[in-house]
């Protein structure tokens, strides 16, 4: 016995007999669960075996025992069932109304009756079947949790009243409002907006008139109207009016009209019931009806700096700031506010760092031109031959045939030169991706903080729709090729970074340890162990990056990138399906050719 205890070494926990551990795990009613688990392990548990508590009170049971998955599933199932049944409250009154005049409302009556019966059937079925499902699954899930607990001690186990309280809070938060919502008709789209306007307007009036109570406001407005009415009456009563008085009369009429609107707004405000407010706040749209003042309307422009030029600095420029007056009374929602602020920020950066952006654009344009020239001036037989030799060297004859056929397709349809433009863009973008992505990936693998920063950024970069990249690219760099390259880089770089980091991270600890034991420095560890071992992963990343770059190169035709994508966008504009289709096939073929050849190279590498 003592020997086995010492042998187990890693984790001397009290698990030698299962019954003991089940007692610790289940706490209450351990004998029952002990036997259930045992039968489950022996495969003797019949499929109809049912946990009665799971059937009758699944929320309480699962919360008490900390089987949260069951809690959520049973909550969801029960809510779906109840919501269906709640439709009775929604359509019941409508049906009753319709029955007042059965002949005129025959269609309505038929429709409501059908809906209600469907809802009732589905609701009852969901409730019953859902409960049966939970009852059947409860012990099986509980056993899974038990197995998990035996590995990870922190897994929820035992019974806790605290968890039941948490569950009750969740229920209180979720159930009433959901059920209430399901009994209500849809709120009119404008209703909530008008409500906000009425509330807003009344607030403003309250501050203008310096009153806090709405009733005071009403009387103040009424007073003012009375005064205006009296004054108008006196003026209209007099036979002849001076010009001054005529002017005053017009003014009074205008004021009266204004006043009437204000009184209406206050009436609207008073008509807003607590229920309306509640509905608008909690069951309609998310309450983003907040209105705030827009950001100051600032424009930054770079203009020649006369002073500096006068002092002899030729071509000197400076940034000037122009502020427009805010539009009176304009309030915006948070979305607009943020969007405008971003615009202003971009505008500022663009003006302030014009030199940098122009320089970047220039570098990109120059390198693009070089690569483009290389691709377009290399005679096509050379490139075709090269591709086929690569395919032959690294892949099978099948791929050689495929590559040949694809390139023939490009040639026959006279898409060769255009395809080469796309290729140039892809090559430049991929090169940038490698030069930036590789070090960032290494950094990310080595540094926890870097990982913490980079990971979410990469996730965002991958999830933002590719079209959205084009907008800021245009904002900073204008249209044409260079911003297209940048948008492509941003779109295509995440796999490069992520797979580099992954490849480095998955180098086994023991291998690194061995390298260190023989005196490797951090740098040697990286170059002699980690990077070589990460090569397959990095190559996979490169492959993905190239594919993404190709797809983005197509899309960036929208901002004036040349190449196959331009044909597609043009075809889109003119609704020329055939043209677009052919160009699309050409893009797909280019992608597949690159993919096949790269895959071949990769697998020949990983054979090492």
């Amino acid at each position: 016995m003592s020997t086995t205890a010492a042998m187990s070494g890693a984790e001397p926990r009290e698990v030698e007999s299962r019954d003991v551990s089940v007692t610790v795990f289940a706490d209450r009613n351990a004998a029952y669960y002990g036997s259930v688990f045992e039968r489950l392990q022996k495969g003797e548990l019949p499929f109809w075996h049912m946990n009665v508590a799971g059937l009758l009170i699944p929320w309480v049971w699962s919360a008490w025992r900390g089987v949260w998955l069951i809690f959520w599933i049973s909550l969801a199932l029960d809510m779906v069932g109840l919501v269906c049944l709640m439709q009775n409250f929604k359509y019941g009154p409508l049906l009753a109304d319709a029955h007042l005049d059965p002949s005129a409302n025959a269609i309505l009556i038929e429709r409501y009756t059908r809906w209600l019966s469907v809802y009732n059937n589905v609701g009852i079925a969901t409730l019953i079947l859902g409960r049966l499902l939970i009852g059947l699954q409860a012990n099986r899930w509980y056993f899974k949790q038990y197995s998990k607990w035996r590995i990870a001690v922190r897994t929820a186990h035992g019974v806790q009243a605290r968890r039941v309280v948490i569950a009750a809070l969740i229920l209180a938060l979720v159930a009433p409002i959901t059920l209430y919502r399901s009994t209500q008709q849809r709120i009119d789209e404008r209703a909530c907006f008008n409500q906000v306007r009425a509330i807003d307007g009344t607030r403003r009036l309250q501050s203008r008139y310096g009153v806090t109570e709405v009733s005071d406001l009403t009387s103040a407005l009424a007073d003012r109207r009375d005064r205006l009415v009296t004054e108008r009456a006196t003026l209209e009563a007099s036979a002849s009016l001076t010009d001054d008085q005529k002017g005053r009369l017009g003014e009074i009429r205008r004021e009266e009209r204004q006043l009437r609107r204000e009184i209406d707004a206050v009436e609207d405000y008073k008509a807003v019931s607590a229920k309306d407010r509640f509905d608008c706040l909690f069951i309609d749209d998310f309450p983003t009806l907040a209105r705030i003042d827009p950001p100051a309307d600032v424009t930054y422009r770079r203009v020649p700096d006369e002073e500096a030029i006068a002092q002899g600095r030729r071509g000197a420029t400076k940034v000037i700031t122009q502020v427009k007056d805010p539009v009176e009374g304009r309030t915006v929602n948070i979305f607009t506010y943020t969007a405008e602020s971003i615009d202003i920020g971009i505008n500022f950066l663009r003006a302030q760092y014009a030199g940098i952006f122009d320089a970047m654009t220039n570098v990109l344009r120059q390198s693009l031109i070089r690569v483009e020239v290389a691709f377009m001036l290399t005679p096509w037989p050379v490139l075709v031959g090269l591709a086929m030799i690569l395919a032959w060297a690294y892949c099978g004859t099948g791929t050689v045939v495929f590559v040949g056929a694809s390139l023939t397709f490009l040639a026959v349809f006279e898409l060769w030169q255009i395809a080469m433009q796309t290729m140039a863009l892809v090559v430049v973008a991929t090169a940038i991706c490698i030069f930036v992505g590789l070090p960032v990936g290494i950094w990310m693998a080595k540094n926890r903080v870097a990982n913490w920063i980079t990971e979410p950024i990469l996730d965002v970069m991958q999830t933002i729709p590719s079209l959205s990249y084009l907008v800021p690219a245009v904002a900073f760099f204008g249209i044409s090729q260079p911003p297209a390259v940048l948008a492509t880089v941003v779109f295509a770089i995440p796999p490069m970074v992520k797979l580099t980091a992954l490849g480095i991270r998955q180098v086994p600890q023991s291998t690194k340890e061995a390298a260190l034991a023989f005196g490797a420095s951090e740098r040697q560890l990286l170059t002699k162990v980690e990077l070589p071992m990460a090569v397959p992963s990095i190559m996979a990343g490169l492959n993905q990056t190239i594919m993404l770059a190709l797809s983005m190169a197509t899309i960036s035709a929208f901002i004036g990138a040349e190449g196959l994508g331009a044909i597609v966008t043009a075809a889109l504009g003119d609704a020329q399906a055939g043209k677009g289709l052919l160009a699309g096939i050409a893009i797909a073929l280019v992608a597949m050719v690159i993919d096949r050849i790269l895959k071949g190279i990769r697998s020949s590498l990983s054979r090492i």
Partner: protein
Amino acid sequence: MSVVEVDGVWKVFGDKAADAIAAIRNEGLGKAEVLDRFGAIIGVKNASFTVEEGEIFCLMGLSGSGKSTLVRHINRLIEPTTGTIRILGEDIGAMTPEVLRALRAEKIGMVFQNMALLPHRSVRDNIGFALELRGKDAYHRAQLADHALETVSLHGYGDRLPSELSGGMQQRVGLARALAADPEILLMDEPFSALDPLIRRNLQDEFLGLSQNLRKTTVFITHDLDEAIRMGDRIGIMNDGEIVQIGTAEDIVTAPADDYVADFVAGISRLKLVSASKIMVAVEKHVARHGPIDDARDYPAARPEDDLDTLVELSTGTELPVLIRHDGNTVGIVTKDTLLHGLQGTEAP
């Protein structure tokens, strides 16, 4: 000056290591309680030992007793929670990264239990790895690597990848890698565990010869007591992170420190291990019991350091007890009775 000095080393895995050590010291907590209370795992518990130049020091113990963890401290792959380690008199805990790297590259070779070969490099490049790190040129690297390959009888496998070799062959590559750079100190974590008995024996002999000729200081881990006895000048026995006994094979077999060690050595043949001096009975005691020694008779004689095997040989074919003589004096007597008890490891009455 000892080549390796390990002094009061503790290694406790977990966040609350310091608290755990204090609690173990003050309250004598066991492994399970420490895990319970501090979520900490004891790897090494207050280990101290020294290894002299040219000595082979065997660490042995059951699986999980902390042998690998302890040996990783010697080249500071693991930082001790407390305690110091000195290599050639220098505290490696105080070394700068560069000095430590130089020490690892030039003075210490290591064989890993799980081989830990670099999968993307050929066997030859694996063996030459340490040399490459030191900036040795490719030609000499290849020569030294081939030489090391020959030592472990893997001649001709230099251009294979590790994945193309069997487990035992890989282990030998690991050994060759440690030997190739000709370090003074060798740390060997179960280097022969995956080998068949024949090759293991060959390599053991090979290695013994090597370390005698080149005076390599070795810390040798094994969980096989026979191997420990064959290889080790001294043996340290570990249990649950603690070194429970250090001594020569004979010390350990004849005087196990506790039940754990006794359990360990129970099945070991004492014939070649135990010397006459350990079992002999003092002359006076013998005389008191059996009467005086008749000097006229031709008693067989042996030296105190002769093993039981020799004594058995001497005893067969005569009725007489064996006299143990040292510098011309009889220092003890071994009767058949004593001898049988000695073989069994029980105390003579």
